[in-house]
């Protein structure tokens, strides 16, 4: 098949599934959730698992995101991957990913979710290691898969506990049951959260995500920003009823989310690889979502998933466009002034930056604002303040990225400068669509004051209300909202100016790697977490392997077995000495033997 045909088929089927998703969404809207069982996958004893699908408000939202953004990224890939020899393979993997992701969100029980869950992990592995000739890429792929598997084990055991507790893995049976808080439920929630940690890159299982940027950029956009990594959010939101019954687990989710958000944001400040910055930004944003889940704001988390999918996919695709133009260069120290060469990319990237930074009325503002509001009431002031600081950090690193890449003067080689060009239509079109979505996406969930003032509705809250709903909190005072709005706008402008002054007017550049010192070095080396993990997990296990093989297996276990052999051999050698060959000696032995037998006979 020719490349254009492959691209058309690959994108076409995703478009088809997008259209079907829209239809499913309409059906749900009209007549509520519906379930369909394909066949009985497994029936062993009391364990009965249907290969079944459940389309309700939550899953249809995810389906729309997955297929919609998936389609855009497919289109983008046609342009981006055009010159790659693995073009066919790429689209095959990408479509396999869409399949797995849909399985994940559409399953009617936890096991089908798990199928998709591992399926997307596999596709992620295949796509990160897409350029398999590079050893480092292969390692990154392996790391991603293995870290995901650690989480998967948590999820798997959580499922066993769940089955033990409820006798079923179906969402309906589990989530419909009246729940009271119990130790088992807390355990299940924590185990599920471990699964979510792996998939959604939370502390301590987040280090794979930045490394996953080894994959082609569309992959980073689709899998490692917009869809797969939000599967953890989906899982927790889906199990919202369970989490609500376990305040302890919620606390854990919140604090882990908060820690990840802050931690990743600080690392993002000093990264110089355009994709790495975005990767840490993703980790940080996922942390935001978990904080929202931790305070019981499930729909808010889903709202942020949606808006984040728009602007983060946009940013990644934009960065892909930049990398494409730069001929594979990813270091922002060698970019600069790309505004005039890549006008469309620049504009859309700017929109994405502003959206993630939280400038009203772009999408990021609404969702982040809602998270902050919910945290204020549900999480206590410490969490709220930390999260606000993290939002500020988000704005800083994104603005830094923007200014260093697009403003100022070009710092690359002449050759690169000569090569600079705007990307083809198949790449810019998705950028434009996503930019529009990033602008208007926020109106899916407007804050309360807008509801009153402008007569708009929080569509998403109402929509998802049938599946999960936010924990109740007191009505937000308008004063608070206005303050938050004003302060955030003010801070953003000040920041924008400051960052601009720092990097553009003063032409300060991030120092080369070897000149970094102190905290800067610490940050750019990501707090040495990779090295730490290497030292406390990877190497010990490897040396344990060598140790077991060399010092336990060979001398002890095998030694014992061989010892038996040696024992019989050496005892044979010893007993052989009795055979002197001296006939009289044998005769004597015989006679003595007879005597002994007689005596024994006599005694008994």
């Amino acid at each position, binding site marked *: 098949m020719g490349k254009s045909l492959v691209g058309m088929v690959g994108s076409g089927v995703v478009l088809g599934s997008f259209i079907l998703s829209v239809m499913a969404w309409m059906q749900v809207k009209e007549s509520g959730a519906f379930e369909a069982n394909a066949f009985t996958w497994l029936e062993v004893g009391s364990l009965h698992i249907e290969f079944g699908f459940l389309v309700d408000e939550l899953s249809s939202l995810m389906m729309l995101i997955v297929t919609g953004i998936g389609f855009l990224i497919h289109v983008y890939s046609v342009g981006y991957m055009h010159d790659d020899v693995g073009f066919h393979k790429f689209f095959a993997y990408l479509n396999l990913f869409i399949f797995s992701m849909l399985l994940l969100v559409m399953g009617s029980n936890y096991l089908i979710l798990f199928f998709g869950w591992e399926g997307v992990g596999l596709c992620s592995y295949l796509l990160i290691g897409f350029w398999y000739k590079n050893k480092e890429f292969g390692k990154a792929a392996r790391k991603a898969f293995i870290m995901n598997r650690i989480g998967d084990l948590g999820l798997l055991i959580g499922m066993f506990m769940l089955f033990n507790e409820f006798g079923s893995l179906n969402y309906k049976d589990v989530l419909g049951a009246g729940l009271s808080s119990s130790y088992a439920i807390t355990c299940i929630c924590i185990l599920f959260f471990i699964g979510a940690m792996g998939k959604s890159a939370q502390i301590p299982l987040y280090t794979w995500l930045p490394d996953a940027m080894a994959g082609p950029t569309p992959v980073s956009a689709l899998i490692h920003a917009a869809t797969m990594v939000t599967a953890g959010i989906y899982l927790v939101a889906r199990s919202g009823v369970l989490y609500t019954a376990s305040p302890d687990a919620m606390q854990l989710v919140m604090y882990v989310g908060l820690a990840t958000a802050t931690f990743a944001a600080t690392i993002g400040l000093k990264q110089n690889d355009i994709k790495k910055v975005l990767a840490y930004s993703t980790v940080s944003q996922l942390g935001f979502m978990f904080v929202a889940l931790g305070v019981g704001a499930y729909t808010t988390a889903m709202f942020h998933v949606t808006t984040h999918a728009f602007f983060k996919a946009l940013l990644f695709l934009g960065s892909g466009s930049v990398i494409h133009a730069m001929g594979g260069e990813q270091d922002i120290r060698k970019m600069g002034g790309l505004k005039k060469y890549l006008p469309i990319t620049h504009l859309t990237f700017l929109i994405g930056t502003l959206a993630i930074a939280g400038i009203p009325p772009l999408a990021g503002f609404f969702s982040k604002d809602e998270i902050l509001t919910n945290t204020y009431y549900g999480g206590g002031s410490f969490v709220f303040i930390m999260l606000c600081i993290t939002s500020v950090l988000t704005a800083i690193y994104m603005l830094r990225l923007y200014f260093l890449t697009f403003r100022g003067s070009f710092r690359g080689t002449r050759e690169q400068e000569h090569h600079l060009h705007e990307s083809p239509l198949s790449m810019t079109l998705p950028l434009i669509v996503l930019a529009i979505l990033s602008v208007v996406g926020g109106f899916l969930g407007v804050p309360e004051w807008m509801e009153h003032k402008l007569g708009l509705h929080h569509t998403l809250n109402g929509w998802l209300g049938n599946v999960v709903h936010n924990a109740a909190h007191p009505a937000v005072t308008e004063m608070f909202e206005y303050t938050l709005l004003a302060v955030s706008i003010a801070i953003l402008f000040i920041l924008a100016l400051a960052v601009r002054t720092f990097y553009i007017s003063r032409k300060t550049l991030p120092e080369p790697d070897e000149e970094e010192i102190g905290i800067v070095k610490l940050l750019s080396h990501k707090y040495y977490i990779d090295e730490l993990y290497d030292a406390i997990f990877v190497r010990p296990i490897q040396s344990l392997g060598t140790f077991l093989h060399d010092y336990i297996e060979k001398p002890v276990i095998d030694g014992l077995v061989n010892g038996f052999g040696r024992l019989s051999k050496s005892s044979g050698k010893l007993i052989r000495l009795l055979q002197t060959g001296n006939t*009289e000696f044998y005769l*004597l032995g015989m*006679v*003595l033997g*007879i*005597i002994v037998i*007689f*005596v024994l*006979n*006599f005694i008994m």
Partner: protein
Amino acid sequence: MIEILFYVLSFVSIVTGLMVVFAKSPIHSVLSLIVTFFAIAGQYILLNAQFLAIVHIIVYAGAIMVLFLFVLMLLNLNKEAEPNKDIAMKLAGVISASLLMVTLTGALHGSVVPEATLAVNTSNGLVKNLGQVLFKDFVVPFEISSLLFLAAMAGAVLLGKKHPSQITDSEIQKI
């Protein structure tokens, strides 16, 4: 009368038996053994086993011992010098043999032999009776023993013959 005869014969057989063991020259051993056999044949007669006694003398004294003598003569082994044994080994031999005797007699001492149930039949040892038992009840072992003889004969011939490859060149020239 019979008792005296028994004791005399016993004495003779034990003494000559000891002589077999302790005689320096193998020839003396052979001769003593022949005497022992005669004494034992006398015991057989005392036991009313006349035919057995005759066969005993013919087979043992007449055939086997002659064979021994022949071999001794042929090989010219009539030397008194036998390589000396370890004194410890000798001592061990004597001690263990006596030990064996002590344990055996000790063991037999307590045993009770059931009294004979049938009336004494003095004609048991006659050829006619024995022949009947031998060819009626024991005909199969009898035939097998004849096979054994055949095999022993063949074996003895085979062993006694010089292997062709062992014949040296000088011997060939002699022929």
